[in-house]
């Protein structure tokens, strides 16, 4: 049963005016926007240790490597990696692709990807999050559709907390960017934590020099 609907453009323009008129008509005073005082914000003696500790508690696994080439070796010891058929590596120095990603146009064609190995920009000590810029992803869905995710990030590239994280990003450089902290998870059934909801089932993080 299809009901007629008035043309959208006129309706939304009218509502825009109605909403803004009402908001502008009532003047509300406020002391203005605050600026966080950096001296009041926690910094960690050992940010790397803090990051690793938090990431492990949210279900991620952290590996310190001296050389990116060690990544493939460590992953190879994980059964689901050794048996994986479709691996997308966005970090060529760490692992090889098993198929040519450049030929893929429609993200739906990535539905069978087993592993994505992505590059992180920097990590956040306080909460185990890693910032991934959309520019590094040929398809942003790669982060979410792969059964397993590995992120390679330099251990020199970190911030202590989220204030510094946003200060470091400064302004968004691409249409998409995401903080990833641990594998996807749900506790929607009786508060029982289950790793691997819709996104990756597990997260491996490699900290390179």
């Amino acid at each position, binding site marked *: 049963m*299809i*009901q007629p*609907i*008035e043309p*959208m453009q006129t*309706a*939304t*323009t009218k*509502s*825009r005016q109605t*909403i*803004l008129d*009402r*908001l502008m008509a009532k003047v*509300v005073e*406020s*002391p203005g*926007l*605050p600026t*966080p005082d950096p001296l*009041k914000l*926690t910094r960690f003696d050992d940010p790397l240790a803090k990051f690793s500790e938090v990431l492990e508690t*949210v279900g991620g696994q952290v590996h310190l490597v001296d050389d990116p080439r060690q990544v493939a070796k460590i992953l190879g010891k994980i059964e689901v990696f050794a048996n994986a058929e479709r691996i997308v590596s966005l970090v060529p120095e760490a692992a090889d692709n098993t198929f040519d990603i450049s030929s893929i146009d429609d*993200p*739906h064609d990535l539905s069978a990807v087993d592993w994505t190995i992505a590059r992180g920009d920097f990590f*956040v000590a*306080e*909460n*185990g*999050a890693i910032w991934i810029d959309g520019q590094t992803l040929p398809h*942003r*869905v790669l982060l*979410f559709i792969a059964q397993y995710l590995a992120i390679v990030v330099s251990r020199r590239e970190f911030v202590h907390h*989220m*204030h*510094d994280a946003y200060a470091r990003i400064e*302004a*968004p450089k*691409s*249409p*998409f*960017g995401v*903080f*990833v*902290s*641990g594998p*996807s*998870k*749900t*506790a*929607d*059934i*009786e*508060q*029982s934590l*289950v790793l*691997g*909801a*819709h*996104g990756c089932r597990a997260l491996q993080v490699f900290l390179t020099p």
Partner: protein
Amino acid sequence: MTQVALPIVDRPAEKKMKRDHTDAARAFVTNPDRAPWHDESLWFVRSKRDKQAASLPEWEYLRSLASQVKTATIARLGEYLVEFERNATNAGATVHWAADAKEHNEIVLNILRDHKTTKIVKSKSMLTEECGLNHFLEDNGIDVVDTDLGERIVQLRHETPSHIVLPAIHLKKEEVGETFYEHLGTEKGAKDPKYLAEAARGHLRDKFLSGEVGVTGVNFGIAETGGVVVCTNEGNADLGASLPRVHIACMGIEKLVPRFQDLGIFTRLLGRSATGQPITAYTSHFHGPRDENSELHIVLVDNGRSKLRQSDEFRAAMHCIRCGACMNTCPVYRRSGGHSYQSTVPGPIGSVLSPTRDPKEHKSLPYACSLCGSCTDVCPVKIPLHHQLLAWRKEIGFMNLLSYDKRMSMKAASILFRSAKLFSLAGWLGRTSLKVLPHWATHHRFNTWTIARELPQPPKESFRSWYAKNRKSENSKGKTS
């Protein structure tokens, strides 16, 4: 006497009156398997939140910052919205404005029709629940799949979420198993959360791959950059927004923050307050569409918010970032369950917001509260929730919406407290009745107060007579000597 023209949204005449919270909660509260179990589940979440809050020395400082940012945002909301619209449009997004729920739903339907779409995948959005989007779209032939696991469970059961962050918190794993057996073909009697979640993963993967448009809510909109931020643990919003070419983000106008840097404050508070996590698994930032062949639509929804802003008393309720901490800590919510509130947002914040839409319909909610103040203590944006609940009781009294027995007992109390003689007489009457009345005279079906309570032992004498005997003479002695 009311400061704002209430109600904010006019109640359609034909709408059925809601039950009182007490009546609506009865079945849940009196179920010995349900209320204590629910109470414990939520207390567990609240305890995790406490642990996270205590781990940050600057926690209280962050709450103050968040409150200041929100106060400043709501004060200049009109200007920030225009700034947001300009920057979002420059980034390539299409911004729509909806004055109310109906218009929001029509805007979404129009976008779907423009793309000849009948299948959408949706991530959790309390705004679309508030607007009744699912039913509207289904009535118009659209197949809507909620992809958040909790929301999918309640959708399959034809229920509504009972909590804004944990939509299926009222359900036991056996019930989820039964629902999945019926709809997803899992084994009968299955109740292992891991097995059930895995079944849902498979079921929803197919839905994600066949969804033609992704609809998400918005946790934060950024005026300075025109971007929107969506936070999830499951990764469902991201799959929904990165597979289809069209992403529709539905956003209440109060979800704005002025500066990109402000996200630093709010991302630190949200996950910790909501579920006791240091941050959600995914915190995704969308600035414009994916590429030149894709579209990002942002629907800005008022639906009563600009009117709520006019109320000096209740304006701070617009600071809410929908973390759910106030419900997790609320002794009434934990025992009565979310459905007893009969509104999209339950718990303390719901009891403040719902009457602003329709004070008559939701008049019992501000009384579903012991005024303990715990909600105010945990709120990450410092909404003075229990003060607002008290303020609502005053409003409801002024509006003459109190029930006859409450009105009469208040009047009687007022007369009693104004007369010393009457007060002293009532005291004597009370003490004497406690002494002489037989049990059956106080414990009967007309006195609901005594269903689960015993009356106190009467004191041997009143304070007045004790004072007259022991202190009055001493005082007068002291004066004379």
